[in-house]
């Protein structure tokens, strides 16, 4: 038997599970043959047994307690849809009678042990021939023999060891991986051509080689042209395409002058060489393309490392449960047709536009509209794709398939795009647009000035202006500085959607906090019950009722109580008061004292706790007490933040904690209680109308609307998989203490971008001054262009690193 890191034998204190490291219950689950090991649940023990039986316990030696807690929910037939022919043909990358291959996305992968186990899958299932991990992308490529095993078995195996793959519609499309190979090809070609053209251009730089130039100029020129041709056709294609797309949408982007400059440079060079006038500027041309591609590559790498699935299709379930006369059947969403009946269970997303047939619909549209308050629906109502059912299972009839669904239209509608694309233009784009106009004017002016005296001079001045003023340094500064900032922040567990968010954070002046789950740590809050003991049936009734509500306390209570799915009738939620419903004929009320019909709580009640009272059929039973625990380091964070920012708390709770929050937040802060999600959203919108730059910090679940409404919404989560599409960034709860540092760092980054702009303007100013006068020679162009781009890149990256170091990040 392999020697496994022994769990502490002491059972008095909570021992850590040998598989996942979570705290074990008082009576840990043990293994007959290895009593030294304790497990927190049957699932973890089952995984351990499975691995031990195949000699795979190296898994536990590579990393400390690497396991994933295995969720006990096992719906029979959950993976049945994977047996469907149409599903397989979409998922599989390669297929023959003896071999099939596909790539899964496995977000749970987090350490060396995971890599090891996932690459040893063949020991668990003989049908699997090979499995390879791409850790950075969190992807697993599996090859298996279809005649020995099946796709469903592979997925079930992965799920059973805690690595359930994420199978979403996004995965069903074409595999996007080969797109970034193109960049490598382009980069390789550009680097090759740049290096060689520089060599050939060498004679031009030194006057003493004039003889060499005279003897070989023609040959060098033609050879450079030959080398530059693939750069134009292959490497520079992306810039031309982007400029063209911009033009078609009547928008001049930064790629437009780049393309214009590149074209001018190329055409002039070809003209000079074919007419024997000179050696051309192919060294500048290839160098420019190479350095700009480098910028693109760095940007793409930083995006790759924090790859969020921004594609909305990722939030849709792949399969739906179709109801047929013979029973339930799992089908891919794409096979749903109008008129068919489907069933959607608790927490499942509605896959198409449907009509509610049976059951109480309580639809959470936060993925679609950012509105997080669930909407109650009755049979006969129309429900739209993208909503999520919270509560009992419902039966639906499909009206429109997903491809034509309301959501797809909504998402493609530019008006719905988050405001930051419309109002928060990056500096580069704003400045760049004026810059483009100025450059074009200067180029035309120079040409008009020189043309009467010397047409050749006019061409030279015009193209030099376009080339030297090509704002590549400008376009490089932002991605390099902000890309470096993204990486620094990612290392400290703040994951941002894109680099524009860094800018938004840097310009913020108001911070809005949600209370429960953000300032307080709901997971750490202790739940206690006072009053006569509840029977199992009563507990289940309370659980069934609170599960219908999205209030954090309800959610916390639901997690505490046994999980069952009972039908709830007459469910009503009174905001700020409580919830009630009828379960198995008994009316249950959960909420504030007055809501359940009890006298106000005694005055000595601790202000640091929230109470939730319950009653059954009129008779009072007892109350649950939630002791609020504020996050560690909250006071320091707030003291630091209140120096620079206007702080606001939006709490859905009552005012019991006003005094304590006032003390924590200081006299200037605004504290608002009894806020509904809609009021939070309105409040943020109102702040923005006053011209404030608002950063909302919430838990991302019940304040999605406000997160979406704010200039930048940060979701504070304990698990990174808990991703809400409404937010712009995810801050891991453990890094909450670094919030002031992070915001200060974002401000630094803005200053750095401005500084690099100044630098690149200096370069461009000097270059333009020389170019307009026609004093511009190929030598200056060849030296100034690559050096200015390179120095801007280095300057930006170094300054960001310096700022991060000074902030202690």
């Amino acid at each position, binding site marked *: 038997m392999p020697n496994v890191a022994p769990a502490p034998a002491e059972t008095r204190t909570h021992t850590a599970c040998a598989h996942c490291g979570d705290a074990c219950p008082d009576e840990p689950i043990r293994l007959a043959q290895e009593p030294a090991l304790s497990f927190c649940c049957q699932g973890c023990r089952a995984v351990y047994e499975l691995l031990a039986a195949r000699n795979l316990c190296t898994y536990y030696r590579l990393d400390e307690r690497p396991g994933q807690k295995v969720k006990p929910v096992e719906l029979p037939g959950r993976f049945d849809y994977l047996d469907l022919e149409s599903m397989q043909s979409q998922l599989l990358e390669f297929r023959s009678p003896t071999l099939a291959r596909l790539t899964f996305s496995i977000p749970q992968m987090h350490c060396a042990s995971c890599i*090891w186990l996932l690459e040893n899958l063949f020991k668990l299932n003989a049908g699997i021939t090979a499995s390879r*991990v*791409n850790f950075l992308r969190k992807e697993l490529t599996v090859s298996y023999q279809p005649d020995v095993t099946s796709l469903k078995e592979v997925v079930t195996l992965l799920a059973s060891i805690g690595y359930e793959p994420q199978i979403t519609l996004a995965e069903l499309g074409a595999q996007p991986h080969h797109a970034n190979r193109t960049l490598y090809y382009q980069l390789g070609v550009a680097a090759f051509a740049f290096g060689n053209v520089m*060599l050939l251009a060498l004679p031009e730089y030194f006057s003493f080689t004039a003889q060499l130039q005279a003897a070989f100029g023609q040959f060098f020129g033609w050879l450079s042209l030959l080398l530059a041709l693939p750069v134009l056709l292959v490497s520079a294609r992306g810039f031309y395409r982007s400029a063209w797309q911009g033009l078609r949408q009547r928008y001049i982007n930064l790629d437009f002058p780049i393309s214009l400059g590149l074209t001018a440079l190329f055409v002039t060079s070809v003209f000079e060489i074919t007419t024997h006038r000179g050696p051309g500027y192919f060294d500048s041309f290839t160098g420019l393309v190479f350095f700009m591609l480098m910028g693109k590559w760095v940007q793409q790498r930083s995006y790759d490392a924090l790859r969020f699935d921004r594609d909305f299709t990722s939030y849709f379930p792949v399969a739906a449960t179709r109801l047929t006369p013979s029973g339930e059947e799992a089908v891919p969403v794409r096979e749903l047709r109008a008129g068919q009946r489907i069933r959607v269970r608790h927490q499942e997303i509605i896959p198409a536009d449907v009509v509610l047939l049976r059951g109480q619909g309580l639809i959470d549209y936060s993925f679609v509209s950012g509105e997080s308050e669930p909407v109650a629906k009755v049979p006969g109502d129309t429900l739209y794709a993208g909503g999520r059912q919270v509560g009992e299972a419902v039966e639906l009839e499909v009206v429109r398939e997903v491809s034509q669904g309301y959501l797809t239209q909504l998402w493609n509608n530019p008006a719905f795009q988050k405001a930051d694309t419309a109002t928060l233009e990056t500096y580069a784009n704003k400045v760049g647009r004026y810059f483009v106009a100025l450059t074009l004017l200067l180029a035309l002016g120079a040409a008009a000035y020189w043309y009467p005296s010397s047409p050749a001079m006019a061409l030279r001045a015009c193209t030099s202006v376009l080339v030297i003023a090509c704002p590549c340094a400008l376009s490089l500064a932002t991605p390099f500085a902000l890309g470096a900032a993204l990486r620094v922040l990612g290392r400290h567990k703040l994951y941002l959607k894109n680099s524009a968010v860094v800018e938004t954070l840097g310009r913020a002046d108001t911070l809005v906090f949600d209370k429960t789950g953000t300032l307080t740590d709901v997971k750490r809050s202790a739940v206690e019950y006072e009053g006569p003991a509840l029977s199992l049936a009563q507990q289940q009734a309370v659980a069934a009722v609170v599960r219908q509500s999205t209030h954090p306390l309800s959610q916390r209570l639901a997690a505490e109580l046994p999980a069952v799915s009972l039908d709830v009738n007459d469910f009503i939620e009174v905001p700020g008061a409580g919830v009630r419903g009828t379960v198995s004929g008994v009316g249950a009320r959960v909420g504030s004292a007055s809501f359940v019909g009890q006298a106000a709580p005694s005055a000595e009640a601790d202000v640091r706790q929230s109470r939730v009272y319950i009653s059954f059929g009129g008779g009072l039973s007892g109350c649950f007490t939630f002791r609020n625990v504020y996050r560690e380091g909250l006071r320091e964070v707030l003291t630091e933040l209140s120096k620079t920012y206007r702080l606001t708390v939006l709490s859905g709770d009552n005012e019991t904690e006003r005094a304590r929050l006032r003390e924590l937040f200081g006299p200037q802060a605004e504290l608002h209680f009894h806020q509904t999600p809609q009021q939070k959203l309105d409040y943020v919108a109102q702040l923005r109308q006053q011209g404030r730059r608002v950063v909302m910090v919430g838990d991302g679940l019940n304040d999605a609307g406000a997160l979406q409404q704010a200039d930048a919404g940060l979701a504070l989560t304990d698990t990174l998989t808990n991703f809400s599409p409404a937010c712009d960034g995810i801050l891991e709860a453990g890094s909450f203490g670094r919030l002031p540092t992070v915001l200060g760092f974002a401000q630094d980054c803005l200053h750095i971008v401005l500084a690099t702009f100044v630098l690149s303007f200096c370069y461009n100013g000097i270059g333009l001054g020389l170019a307009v006068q026609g004093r511009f020679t190929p030598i200056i162009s060849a030296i100034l262009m690559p050096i200015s781009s390179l120095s801007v890149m280095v300057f930006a990256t170094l300054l960001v690193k310096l700022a991060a170091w000074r902030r202690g990040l």
Partner: protein
Amino acid sequence: MSIIFLLIGISLCVALAFLGAFLWAVRSGQYEDDYTPSVRMLFEDEAVPDEK
């Protein structure tokens, strides 16, 4: 001085060979993942005792 034609020809050939090698490396997927191989190479030693 016509040796320069030959020298440049040779240097271009060498450079082309390197370009070819780079393109081959990209094509064979070596640039897709530059982290996992560094972890994977440590596994072989660990896994052997288990195979006894």
